[in-house]
């Protein structure tokens, strides 16, 4: 596994240039990210790892266009996100980003099919096409038998699959996952990581994931380690990676691609 920042043969889908993110909490100014630079090639499965408060979720928010940097530049799929207003960012996310969250965050009042079709409401597709695409996405994640089920009748793993189907239904350039295995047991966590890897393998999707899960190291192409808002490089990154491997007992084994 290559974890060197900026490495990879493909053209970068994501370009992060000297990005800092600071915000005010009460009377304190929090430095969530400090001068991070990073290129992520298209079609890669990338993990951001690090302890709580390391800035990995902040980085994910910047990459997905949920947040904007205080300094520096974020360019995704050729679009400089710094220049977009809140509403423009929303439209951009709807077209280019699929989001997956730790707690699935499905609408409890909608069936699996309707949850998946939700982002398609922002398109000009007619209802029949929206339903067809939602059902296709659910088939991709192996839930074609659960189309009419409501979230409360699905297991945690199934709910996360629905969330993944919702993330891919618009065929985005980028899939962003924030702790997607954080609320799942080991078996379901592996299944979800494998599903994300397959999205990269079979559909060429770029997947960026924030995780604490050491198992993720076996699935990602690149893992970036952050600590106190700084992207670790060189020996620091190697040490952090090793510490995770040891704690997981993974030994660096990776599944076949």
């Amino acid at each position, binding site marked *: 596994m290559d974890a060197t920042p900026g490495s990879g043969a493909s053209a970068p889908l994501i370009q992060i240039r000297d990005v800092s993110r600071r915000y005010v909490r009460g009377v304190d100014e929090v430095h969530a990210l400090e001068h991070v630079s990073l290129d992520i090639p298209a079609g890669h499965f990338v993990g951001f790892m690090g302890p709580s408060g390391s800035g990995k979720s902040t980085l994910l928010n910047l990459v997905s266009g949920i947040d904007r940097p205080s300094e520096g530049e974020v360019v995704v799929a050729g679009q400089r996100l710094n220049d977009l207003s809140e509403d423009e960012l*929303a439209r951009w996310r709807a077209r280019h980003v699929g989001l997956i*969250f730790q707690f699935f965050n499905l609408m409890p009042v909608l069936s699996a099919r309707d949850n998946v079709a939700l982002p398609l409401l922002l398109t000009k597709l007619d209802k029949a096409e929206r339903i067809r695409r939602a059902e296709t996405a659910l088939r991709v994640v192996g839930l074609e038998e659960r189309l009419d089920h409501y979230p409360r009748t699905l297991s945690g793993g199934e709910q996360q699959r629905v969330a993944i189907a919702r993330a891919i239904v618009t065929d985005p350039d980028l899939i962003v996952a924030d702790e997607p295995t954080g609320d799942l047991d080991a078996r379901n966590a592996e299944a979800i990581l494998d599903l994300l890897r397959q999205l990269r393998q079979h559909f060429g999707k770029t997947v960026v994931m924030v995780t604490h899960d050491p198992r993720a190291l076996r699935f990602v192409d690149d893992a970036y380690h952050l600590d106190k808002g700084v992207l670790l490089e060189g020996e620091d990154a190697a040490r952090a990676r090793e510490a995770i491997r040891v704690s997981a007992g993974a030994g660096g084994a990776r599944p076949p691609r």
Partner: protein
Amino acid sequence: MKYAGLVLANLGRNKLRTALTGGAIMLAVLLVCVLLTMPAGLDAFLNNIASNTRISVHNKAGLVYAMPYAFTRKVRQIDGVAAACAFVWFGGAFEEAGRVTFPNFAVEVEQVGAVYPDYDVPAQQLADFRRYRDGAIVGRQTMRRYGWKIGDRVTLRSTVWPVNLDFRIVGEIPNERSPLLWMNRDYLDEALKAQGRSGLGITTLIWVRAADPDRVNAIMRAVDELSRNSDAETASETEKSFFSSFFGSLKGFVTIILVVTGLVALCIVFIAANTASMGVRERAGELAILKAIGFGRRAIFGTLLAEATVLSMVAGLGGVLLTIALTDALHTFAGWNPSLGPLGAFIVTASVIVQGVFLSLFVGMLAGVVPAFGAARKSVVATLHEVF
């Protein structure tokens, strides 16, 4: 329209709360609509019972003061007067009721039919009224109320004159316009004389029918001019004006009720707004996700506002339909119970329906706009930080 499914699904999220909020709005709209029918209902009631050619003449000092009976003949001679009839309040109480429960007057039997041609009392019954000194003609409502029929004999105990009189019912006013009872003036006159009294030299009211509606004002002026500087100066007014004075206090009451109802509607706005705010707070996480996956401020604002408005409109339409049902029921019931008075005349006009629908639209939009705006204006990252 593509958001309709999402809006309806969210309305079904907490069915009990949706039902209770909808019920509160429905009752408020019902209350407002029923009250809005009252002014128009009163007017319709007065138009129904009053003729545009009939004039009431009474003592300027008030209804309890009499006028000389001879004045009736003078009125009859005024140009444009088709007929005039003296009315004396008998104040008769039916023994079973023990109190005055319907208006009853001693009238001039030769004149009353000409003053009230629109009452459609059959000619034969008017002839019997003239023939039988103890004859009485009774309104259909009163006949139905006491189960009387033509040919029955009834006794009324006067609360004004020291007599009890037996009557033979010889006719019926064949419509719902008045519950009153007419008796022969001469019958009362003789009963009083039999007790050694001077008889009826007075009249309480004179009802005049103008030959032409255009001459009503001129006749009223002429009548009042005729009595000027006499011991009993008169005040003339149209029949509609005469009856509306009986409901004058009711109109004031209606105004107060409308003000109170407006405040109730405002309370309902606050209740609905509070419910909408609670709903938004409970769904903060979901709204954050919607924003994150690309729903813009306008979409968030629109769907939340639509939820409040749809609920309010459906409840409001329910309130309007209930109003129609209630007024229909009152209309039906009033036919059997004259004491309901003008309540039976309250009708839901198109104007009331439009006002009811707009009230519910107003409640929904006002209740939804604040929480919807609050939810929409927050940035996505701030919302995500708040809830995750």
